């Protein structure tokens, strides 16, 4: 069997085995081992791409080009991180005695299933298959949101599923319309919906139908990516889902949805010229960055705070692509890479604080966590420094690349607003994190705080932090080659 198919089969089998019975150590071993193997296979697939063979299957319905390879590697990476952290996460809850057999089954089954669906998105070269894969990610994550079975988690899951399904309905309509726009130029069978086929047919597409299709598809996949104004499910889902699942949403799903957006954007660019979808992406991206500002300032929950940060970051990537210059596209993909490295640290440390305090609400966590949970608090501060784009870390470089691309192009006013929003977000984030970390060390009354100890989850958070920091100074050459290859795909030079 082909390497690419193995990459998809392994997490699927892991999900099947994890969802069934078995003792706890066996399940833990299966999940971490399975997803470690998956990450290895992702790397091998990307390696195959870099060595000049394009991995493909099912008549090119699955095909790995530069963009796919980059997203595949990043998703495989967070899949492994999330599995390793997840083992520690569930053990903490086991110790507190709040884990039911249902939770164990769902956790060990759905996390690998979610990873499978994401990798499936990243490997798809067929708009129909891509849609099916995105729908699978939605379905795999619903029961992770209801994991804790609270009133609010049902609310979050309902909103997530309704908004997500509606978005996917739009994306399906967009796909159908793009398909309709190219009637007569596509041929027969599954290959007719292949992205590569559509790209070849793009210059002959009927412009009105393409325009309508692109709008629907961008709104649809934009909902999954959490671009404003379709972002409202995100804060709720982040608060309710367990942190290992949130990492998959914040990095894997975000990258996957952005992957879909980029594919649609490229079809639009080939059919209508560069301006139409770039303009849409630029406005949605800018709106996302702007909308995050007030909500970060008034935020009452730590994980929701990180959700708004993730809305900001997907906005930054959309702006980078929407600027319509090659440097912007490169900046966006660099940003995607660095964000995938940095976000897990933030979520793992925030998740640890939330678990120790029994809640992620800020009034329950209070201030002065540095005295109560020094390691997690230090990691939270470090990750906040990184994800707000401070020098010398990676996201600073990618944001600077995008800003420079913006100021040197024709979008100076937009870029100025964008820059102002980034500065405001930096201040807002610094204020919120400072409020949590500093202050008198006593916990708020009514909160029982568990002592911090160096367990698996915290160790994984530390490893993630080391990777995030060191990536600023040393990005492995193959990874950089992947980012360049992905930029070539997004920029459209063969």
């Amino acid at each position, binding site marked *: 069997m082909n390497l690419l198919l193995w990459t998809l089969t392994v997490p699927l089998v892991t999900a099947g085995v994890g969802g069934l019975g078995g003792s706890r150590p066996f399940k833990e071993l299966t999940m971490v081992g399975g997803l470690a193997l998956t990450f290895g296979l992702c790397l091998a697939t990307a390696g195959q791409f870099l060595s000049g063979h394009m991995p493909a299957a099912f008549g090119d319905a699955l095909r790995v080009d530069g963009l796919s390879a980059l997203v595949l590697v990043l998703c495989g990476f967070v899949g492994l991180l999330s599995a390793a952290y997840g083992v520690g996460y569930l053990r903490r809850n086991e110790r507190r005695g709040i884990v039911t057999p249902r939770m164990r089954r769902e956790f060990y089954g759905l996390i690998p299933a979610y990873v499978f669906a994401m990798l499936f998105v990243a490997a798809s070269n067929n708009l129909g298959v891509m849609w099916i894969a995105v729908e699978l990610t939605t379905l795999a994550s*619903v029961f992770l949101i209801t994991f804790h079975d609270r009133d609010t988690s049902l609310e979050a899951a309902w909103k997530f599923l309704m908004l997500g399904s509606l978005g996917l309905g739009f994306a399906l309509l967009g796909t159908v319309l793009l398909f309709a726009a190219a009637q007569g130029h596509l041929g027969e069978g599954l290959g007719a919906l292949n992205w590569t086929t559509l790209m070849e047919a793009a210059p002959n597409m009927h412009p009105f139908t393409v325009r309508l299709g692109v709008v629907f598809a961008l709104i649809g996949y934009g909902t999954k990516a959490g671009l404003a104004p379709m972002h409202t499910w995100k804060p709720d889902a982040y608060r309710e889902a367990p942190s290992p699942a949130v990492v998959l949403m914040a990095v894997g799903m975000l990258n996957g949805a952005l992957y879909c957006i980029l594919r649609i954007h490229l079809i639009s660019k080939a059919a209508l010229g560069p301006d139409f979808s770039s303009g849409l992406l630029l406005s949605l991206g800018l709106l996302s960055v702007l909308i995050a500002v007030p909500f970060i300032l008034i935020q009452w929950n730590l994980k929701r705070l990180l959700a708004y940060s993730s809305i900001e970051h997907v906005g930054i990537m959309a702006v980078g692509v929407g600027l319509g210059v090659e440097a912007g596209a490169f900046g966006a993909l660099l940003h995607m890479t660095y964000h995938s490295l940095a976000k897990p640290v933030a979520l793992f440390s925030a998740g640890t604080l939330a678990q120790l305090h029994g809640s992620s609400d800020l009034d329950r966590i209070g201030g002065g966590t540095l005295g109560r949970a020094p390691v997690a608090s230090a990691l939270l501060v470090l990750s906040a420094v990184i994800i707000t784009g401070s020098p010398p870390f990676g996201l600073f470089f990618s944001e600077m690349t995008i800003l420079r691309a913006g100021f040197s192009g024709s979008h100076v006013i937009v870029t100025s607003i964008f820059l102002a929003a980034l500065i405001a977000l930096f201040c807002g984030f610094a204020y919120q994190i400072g409020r949590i970390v500093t202050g008198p060390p006593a916990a708020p009354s009514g909160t029982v705080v568990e002592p911090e100890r160096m367990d698996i989850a915290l160790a994984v958070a530390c490893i993630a932090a080391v990777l995030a920091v060191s990536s600023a100074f040393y990005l492995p050459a193959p990874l950089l080659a992947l980012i360049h290859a992905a930029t070539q795909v997004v920029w459209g030079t063969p």
Partner: protein
Amino acid sequence: MTSNILILCATGMLVSAYLMVGQKALLTTIRLYGAQSLLLGIVATTIALAEGRHELLVTAALTVTLKAALIPWFLLRTVDRIGIHREIEPALNVPASLLVCLGLTVVGYRVSTGFLEGARGVGHHLIGVALSLLLIGLFLMVTRKKAITQILALLTVENAVFLVAIGVTEGMPLIVELGISFDVILAVLVLGILVQRIVGRFESMDISRLSKLKG
């Protein structure tokens, strides 16, 4: 003859959507959705036979078995099990809702004229009806409060997308269509489970009560 059947069925789908807007009994709304899906199946069959596109027959068979029979049956069973039968007063009252939907239909038809096939004949009606259905589905989703009605609104949007697919394309690749149907079934199952959990928790499926999460 063929075009008459197509226009009749498409109009029937639109009428069923209007009846859904004017309806408060949940069981009737579910049956209306079933009827709408049956009409969609007839549209697909008619086109398949008239134009010799035999793979569309599979679409038709899927539509009828899944959306006209299985999904309505599942939803009816869910409603029976939770014992809530009526929609509460929607955010906008029925006469006003119907007027809004009339406006949405005009918009749908107006947009449909931009299509290559849309400017004339049967295609015009299919796309016009599909876009109107889409907008009415969205409208239902915004104004209704019961979880089941929201699911039906979502499914109406989905029917609209399929009508576009049948009306303006030469048929999506079969494997993709099978995958989509599978996903839709799975989504309805998940939604059904979620509704039962919500009812078990809140003793109501009034979605407007789910409003704790803000900011």
